[in-house]
């Protein structure tokens, strides 16, 4: 076999005698039907396995529908929530005695506790109770220790019990939770937030716009329905946001936010935030409708969570409206200082933006860097530090010899719908 032609011939000769056996068409067709059936079964089995794997993955990995928070049924006029952690019966009794002795509401009956625990951290003892006062009204009260009086329990806030159906979290944010009643903490980081969320919430996060983002609580951190968190003295209930998260009982499931609400203030001596709805707005002013207009005075500050909106310039009591000069308006001016570095100065609206000026120059070097927070004291607070409101951030670094720097307001003034007007604790003049 020396040539390819010869090989071709021989291959043909080798294959030539092979003849098909009768009935081969039927055999092919039968075989194809069998193959088709087998493929269908295999495809079905593969689909079933895929579905099973997907379902398992969804269940295990944490995909799927967002968890729903089911509210416990109300306990009459009270929240029907279970207590957080172990309830210290002695502390409940002590708190009840303090509550009864504190004012005209006692004796309190049908007292039940959300929180009653002692520890060596932060506020030492915390109790949150609800019960009927002597008039039969449902009340909610917060108690913490007084570190200046051998950690004796003090009543910090006593308010009507919240709506037992719609409430998802109760809170108290105040700088007056560590000393005698009504006294501001002597600690620079002395504002505390106490938040108790409804059962089913796995994590509560308390964040505050007066501190930088990196210091905001981590929603994935192991916490519980109760959060006690310290903030700088400039923090207020109005700058505090409380978020509740639910983590489904699946290994890799992510936290889902189920609510986000503003903090509640109202400790004895705290400035009160009076809510107002914006009914008219120009580039310079807004007009807000206020139900508690009697508490509003000229010169008070209107704030939102992100910071200062402006200052009340006129109060129309008969109409229940207040007019507020926006921080960027030319009529707006006032003392201010940079947060933490305490560079003093004053802020002034230019009509379109905001400037911090009159900063001292001379031997001592005052520096202001881009992004530094500038705050304005609240006239309804006892001093310049407590409850000072963020007005803006430096738009650029201040030149060494300069006495002014432009600011960027922290509030988007074009989209303000509601404000809180900071009034005195008594409802009178600040």
């Amino acid at each position: 076999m020396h040539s390819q032609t010869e090989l071709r011939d021989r291959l043909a000769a080798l294959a030539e005698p092979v003849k098909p056996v009768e009935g081969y068409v039927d055999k092919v067709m039968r075989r194809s039907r069998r193959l088709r059936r087998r493929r269908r079964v295999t495809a079905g089995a593969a689909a079933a396995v895929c579905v099973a794997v997907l379902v398992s993955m969804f269940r295990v990995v944490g995909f799927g529908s967002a968890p729903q928070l089911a509210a416990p049924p109300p306990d009459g006029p009270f929240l029907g929530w279970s207590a957080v952690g172990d309830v210290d019966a002695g502390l409940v009794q002590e708190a009840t005695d303090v509550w009864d002795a504190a004012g005209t509401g006692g004796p309190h009956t049908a007292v039940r506790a959300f929180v009653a625990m002692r520890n060596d951290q932060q506020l030492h003892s915390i109790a949150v109770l609800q019960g009927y006062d002597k008039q039969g009204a449902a009340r909610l009260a917060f108690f913490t220790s007084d570190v200046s009086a051998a950690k004796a329990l003090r009543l910090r806030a006593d308010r009507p019990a919240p709506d037992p159906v719609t409430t998802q979290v109760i809170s108290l944010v105040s700088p007056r939770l560590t000393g005698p009643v009504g006294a501001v903490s002597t600690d620079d980081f002395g504002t505390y937030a106490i938040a108790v969320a409804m059962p089913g919430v796995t994590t509560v996060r308390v964040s505050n716009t007066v501190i930088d983002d990196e210091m905001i609580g981590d929603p994935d951190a192991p916490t519980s329905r109760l959060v006690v968190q310290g903030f700088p003295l400039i923090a207020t209930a109005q700058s505090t946001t409380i978020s509740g998260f639910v983590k489904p009982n699946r290994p890799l499931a992510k936290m889902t936010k189920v609510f986000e609400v503003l903090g509640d203030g109202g400790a004895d001596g705290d400035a009160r935030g009076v809510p107002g709805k914006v009914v008219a707005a120009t580039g310079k002013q807004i007009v807000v409708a206020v139900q508690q207009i009697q508490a509003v005075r000229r010169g008070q500050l209107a704030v939102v969570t992100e910071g200062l909106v402006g200052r009340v310039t006129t109060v129309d009591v008969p109409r229940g409206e207040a007019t507020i000069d926006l921080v960027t308006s030319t009529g707006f001016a006032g003392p201010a200082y940079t947060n933490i570095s305490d560079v003093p100065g004053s802020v002034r609206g230019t009509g379109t933006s905001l400037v911090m000026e009159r900063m001292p120059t001379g031997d001592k070097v005052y520096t202001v860097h881009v992004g530094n927070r500038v705050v304005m004291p609240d006239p309804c607070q006892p001093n310049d530090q407590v409850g000072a409101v963020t007005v803006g951030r430096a738009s650029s670094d201040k030149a060494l010899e300069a006495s002014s720097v432009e600011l960027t307001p922290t509030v988007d003034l074009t989209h303000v719908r509601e404000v809180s007007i900071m009034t005195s604790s008594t409802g009178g003049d600040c």
Partner: protein
Amino acid sequence: MRSQDDEGVTAFVRASYGRLLREAFLLCGDAGRAEDLVQTTLAKTVVVWSRLQRSEGIDNYVQRTLINTYLSARRRRAWWEQPFSRLVERQARDEYVGVEQRDWLRRALDALPARQRAAVVLRFYADLSEQDAALALGCSVGTVKSLSSRGLRTLRQRWVEVDATAEHEVRYA
């Protein structure tokens, strides 16, 4: 539509069965296995018949399926009897030369590796171009050249050996 399809399939099977069977025989070296190989190939073709009519040439598909099925089965090995590398007993010679030569070629093909054998059959029996053979084998043209060249060289070596044996037997008979 369905009956039209069935008629088309039947016609195709009738038309291609003999050719494929002979090719399969050269690949397998056994008529029974060749029949099994062709039926499997055609059954696979019938299953995807409607799709084939919308896409590539049916002949190409059948050719490739035949080769793939053959190579896959060879890879599994269980489908095949394991040939001895050396025969323990000397084979009796056929009475007639033609028969002897066919027998020799069949044995020589059996001794080739599967892909070399497929390349030889495709190139020198099915008369496919190198491009078409590459398509059927799922490899490059260069690989086809190499496979068929090595296959051919092996077959020639065997032929030379057989010639020498025959001469030796004649000389000392």
